[in-house]
């Protein structure tokens, strides 16, 4: 009987081991199955015409040029707003306000912002940028909204990066007569640069995939032109996909699959670059 007891015990342990392995791959396998299905449906739809055509009522003629242009506009302006503010805020928190009361309050506030649903940022953008500042449903309003959305991600990543720069480097710089700002500019930030870039790329990849806050701000579902200024109406790739998914005709679902292939390529590429940088920069001081 005692022998049997130990056998069951060992068996349970073995079973759990394989169960754990199965769980680990469950999500990834689902994702692979899904992506495989999308490629099967949508890959043949991707052509140069699909890239350069405007959206159309006729599924076979529809393309993503206005959505791609919109995504590009939004990402450029979001970067211009979010990167300097995010890095600046992180440097302030880490180098100037680390132990202070203000620093603690800012930190709690940032963790809270990181947990606010993206659609709430949409409501913020709709009222503050769209109505009060008079930007309407423009690229500028959408970009500012996304910039606020990804700000916590950039700040947290930059703080980690700056924190990892050893004290000895700072002290060496001070010993050479550099001021605090000179030390930050010429020693701390360059030493932390690659980790900061990794964080920024992850944040931007998140922004590229967002649809909900932009819909709330007033991005359009049907845009038959390429935006030529930041005050123009716009759409982005995820919203174009959403629009095609919402239509009952099967032909539009194929367009959605093709759009998803392009969107996923961009997201995966950005994430791959981020992971590569992270592995490459595991330098320990």
């Amino acid at each position, binding site marked *: 009987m005692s022998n049997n007891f130990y056998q069951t015990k*060992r068996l349970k342990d073995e079973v759990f081991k394989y169960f754990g392995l199965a*769980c680990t791959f469950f999500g*990834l396998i689902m994702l692979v199955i899904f992506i495989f299905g999308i490629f099967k449906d949508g890959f043949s739809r991707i052509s140069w015409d699909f890239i350069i055509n405007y959206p159309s009522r006729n599924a076979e003629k529809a393309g993503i040029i206005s959505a791609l242009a919109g995504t590009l506009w939004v990402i450029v302006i979001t970067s211009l707003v979010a990167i300097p503010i995010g890095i600046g805020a992180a440097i302030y928190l880490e180098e100037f306000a680390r132990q202070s009361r203000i620093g603690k309050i800012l930190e709690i506030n940032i963790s809270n*912002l990181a*947990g606010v649903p993206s659609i709430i940022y*949409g409501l913020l953008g709709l009222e503050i940028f769209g109505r009060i500042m008079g930007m309407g449903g423009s690229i500028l309003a959408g970009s500012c909204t996304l910039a606020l959305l990804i700000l916590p991600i950039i700040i947290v990543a930059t703080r980690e990066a700056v924190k990892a720069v050893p004290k000895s480097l700072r002290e060496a710089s001070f010993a050479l007569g550099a001021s605090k700002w000179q030390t930050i500019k010429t020693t701390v930030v360059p030493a932390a640069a690659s980790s900061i870039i990794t964080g920024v790329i992850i944040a931007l990849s998140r922004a590229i995939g967002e649809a909900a806050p932009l819909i709330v701000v007033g991005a359009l579902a049907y845009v038959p032109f390429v935006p030529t200024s930041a005050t123009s109406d716009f759409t982005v790739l995820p919203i174009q996909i*959403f629009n095609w998914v919402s239509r009952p005709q099967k032909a539009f679902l194929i367009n959605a699959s093709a759009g998803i292939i392009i969107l996923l390529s961009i997201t995966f590429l950005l994430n791959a670059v981020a992971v590569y940088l992270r592995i490459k920069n595991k330098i320990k001081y």
Partner: protein
Amino acid sequence: MNKKIREKIIEYILALCALITVLTTISILYVLISEAFIFFTEVSIIDFFTDTQWTPLFAEKHFGILPLLTGTLLTAAIAIAVAMPIGLTIAIYLNEYAHKNFKYVIKPLLEILAAVPTVVYGFFALTVVTPFLQQYFTGMAGFNSLSAGFVMGIMIIPYISSLSDDAITAVPSHIREGSLALGANRIQTAFRVVIPSAASGIIVSIMLAISRAIGETMIVAIAAGQQPRLTLNPLVPIETITTYIVQVSLGDVAHNSLEYRTIFAAGITLFAFTFLLNNLSFWFNKKFHRKYV
């Protein structure tokens, strides 16, 4: 320019950057509270929380948030029911069973699940999961909370596995070794010693995952339907708070109308839930975090 003055100016500019995060919070609160306040001068707050119908866009208007709230909580509950056992098992497996190198390879791969844009998951739920489940559940509608919740669960697996993994890694090895020395095997050690020791971190990870699930928008907007309905049946179309906000944003609702303000009333309800969950988890983490020497 005087070096000292320049240094001060730069410090103020950097402080201004940090201040923007505070302004963001204030703006969110201002927008939600001011618009919701006007809304509640026209709609009684008691009706808002007790009426069982939500039909602000119809001729006969009802403003009961309950159908949207149950829709939101139902999809989130399904998502957690999928993600919690899987995420937790992954965290235990990676710490107690797997080779150390395996963990370093698999963790970035699992993060991919959270990096996929949510419209993509919505498409997945609508065109793959629902048709698949319809073979087994007769009468399952084309839009339903089960598919949306299931796919959302896959998306939040890394949220739970990653934070739980951190909590389990923090359990010192001498506690494990004590258990193993008493004759327990790995599974007994994991469930009776490691998990209780890491409980606070695990609970925090689950609370944050719930908060993420109730704020999720595109998956439910695509796959769960747009019919506010007070039900716990996962096979019929429902509507979540987030979907409602998207639905109104896509439609033609005049600014400054009562219908327009409903999205802020719905928004502040959603915000209150996520804010509560997030801060509860911070507090919980601080209060119950076990310190080991």
